[in-house]
């Protein structure tokens, strides 16, 4: 697997552990994924699967007790994990920017939007007035009504939806190569979510940046993303084009996840499918495949040896013994 010339971001065999009182929690194990240029990659998985840890490791803003135990994150030819704090600071907000989940707490409450949006343009050597104009223009693009006047307002003058639009405007201000979005619309209502996703798609075509979009909402991923990466309990179980995943899912977990989504079940049913059991304890990991204790098609090999990443079809990878041995169901 040589250097993938045509991808903006390449994560290879990334493993991260958190030092906790109970012992070393293996949050990420051998995670491999890539983000092609100008594409939107959906990172999907349920709570506790480590999707936010992946995002925060890219921008290297991990918690103090996090320890990177292996792998590399190649971005524009350099490994982020080996960058010095100053080098990291240089690309943050310039080449990579981020939108966070909770709009109510991600903006500074005592500084005006004007201050916050001009501060982040400290790298561009243009005068303050020009910085304000660029801010106003971007605010208009994300759908903030009369942005020139609203610039002087403080975050608490805006609703949740408006604040998230401001965060997106701030993130795209520096024309980044990669935008990281950590469940940006989970805290919003459905109609608002649709507006913001629609707006994000338009802005992406204009700014030509690629987006790594984290979510647990399958419908959203299907509508917005070009590629999808499915994670479970700290491992990438499947990765591929959006149609590969939604129509030809190879991994039993992906299939079960799709089955459980009530929106996909056509005829009305009184009994909703579920995935019985819980995520295994990530401090002392079970042998074999991580999904073995909940997998409907588990067999002897799953409980002994961990499956390896296998290319089911061009660009479509899965980590399951069924795929490597038996035919794809």
């Amino acid at each position, binding site marked *: 697997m040589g250097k993938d010339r045509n991808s903006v971001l390449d994560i290879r065999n990334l493993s991260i552990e958190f030092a906790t009182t109970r012992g070393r929690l293996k949050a990420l194990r051998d995670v491999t994924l890539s983000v092609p240029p100008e594409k939107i990659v959906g990172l999907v998985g349920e709570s506790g699967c480590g999707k936010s840890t992946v995002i925060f490791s890219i921008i290297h803003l991990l918690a103090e007790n996090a320890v990177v135990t292996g792998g590399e994150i190649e971005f524009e030819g350099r490994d982020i994990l080996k960058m010095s704090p100053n080098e990291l600071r240089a690309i943050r907000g310039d080449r990579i920017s981020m939108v*966070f989940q909770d709009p109510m707490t*991600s903006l500074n409450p*005592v500084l005006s939007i004007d201050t916050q949006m001009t501060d982040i343009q400290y790298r561009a050597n243009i005068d303050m007035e020009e910085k304000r104009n660029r801010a106003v223009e971007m605010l208009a693009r994300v759908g903030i009504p009369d942005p020139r006047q609203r610039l002087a307002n403080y975050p608490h003058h805006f609703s949740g939806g408006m604040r998230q639009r401001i965060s997106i405007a701030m993130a795209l201000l520096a024309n980044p190569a990669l935008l990281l979005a950590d469940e940006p619309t989970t805290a919003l209502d459905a109609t608002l979510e649709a507006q913001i996703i629609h707006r994000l798609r338009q802005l992406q075509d204009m700014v030509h940046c690629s987006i790594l979009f984290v979510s647990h909402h399958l419908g959203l991923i299907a509508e917005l993303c070009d590629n999808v990466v499915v994670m479970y309990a700290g491992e990438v179980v499947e990765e591929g084009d959006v149609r590969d995943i939604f129509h030809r899912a190879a991994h039993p977990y992906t299939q079960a996840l799709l089955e459980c989504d009530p929106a996909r079940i056509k005829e009305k049913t009184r009994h909703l499918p579920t995935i019985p059991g819980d995520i295994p304890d990530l401090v002392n990991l079970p042998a074999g495949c991580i999904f073995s204790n909940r997998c409907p098609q588990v067999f002897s090999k799953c409980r002994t040896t961990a499956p390896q990443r296998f290319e089911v079809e061009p660009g479509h990878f899965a980590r399951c013994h069924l795929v490597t041995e038996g035919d794809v169901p």
Partner: protein
Amino acid sequence: MWIYLVKRILLATIIVITAVTLLYSMILAVPGDPVTVLLGPRSTPEMRDTLRAQMGLDKPFYYQIGHFLLNVLQGDLGMDVFSNRPVSTIVFEQLPHTIILILASIGWAILIGVPLGCYSAIHRNSFVDKLTGVFSVGTIAIPSFVIALYALLIFAVELQWLPAIGAGTGGTLVDRIRHLILPALAVGLGWVGYLSRLVRASMLEVLGENHIRTARAFGLPEHVVIFRYALKIAILPTIALLGVGIGYLLSAAVFAEIVFARPGIGKLIYESVMTRNYPIVMGSVLITTIFFVASTMISDIINAGLDPRIRENL
């Protein structure tokens, strides 16, 4: 902003009025007759009657309170029976010394405490952080008058580096400052620890919040993140507690003035208590309370200035 201002001033006046009423009703609730307490047992009934009439003590309760309140608003706190000079002039003569002492103590406490708090918040669990931790817990706990006594014993009596008595009134500026060092040290020492712990705690809390993570995610230089984004919020609780802290400072000042025999409102009250001269005591307590309420109001207003959320919520 001005709505907040009006509300805050209104609240302050209400507190002062309640304080006055409380104080005055305390006087009247005294089991013995205040006048006999004042003039002592040997005073003749006539003297007591004239004084009682003079002070309007024979009128009904609410009338006296109303009368007293009116006088207070006009700045008249009644007459001192012993020196028959107006109470307010006596008290205002002594007030400046106390204010200088308080400002000096809180001054050096802020200059050292706040930066120390910031440093130990940024370099958590470093040697400095641990040292200041133990130092501040110690100095906050130990009573200020014990510190004053030990300082007096060591620096003034034994080593004689600094004067032990008085405020050096009439001397040169340098002399007055030399008289100020030990009392200011005694009163302010506990506050260095208190402020550093406070700033450290609120800095740590703010640094953990999401918007600081956003600021760092945009690659803002660390000093901008610390001073413009974090400190501006972290300082708010410190300012609020400084306003309230004036009350504790005034108490510590009383001891410092007595231990170092410095003139000031504390010494005045102490002497009047000895002679049971309650008008002076009441007058000075009242003025210090007004001074305290004013300082809490000022710190709230400064906070409103810094934090738009307070400024605008009605």
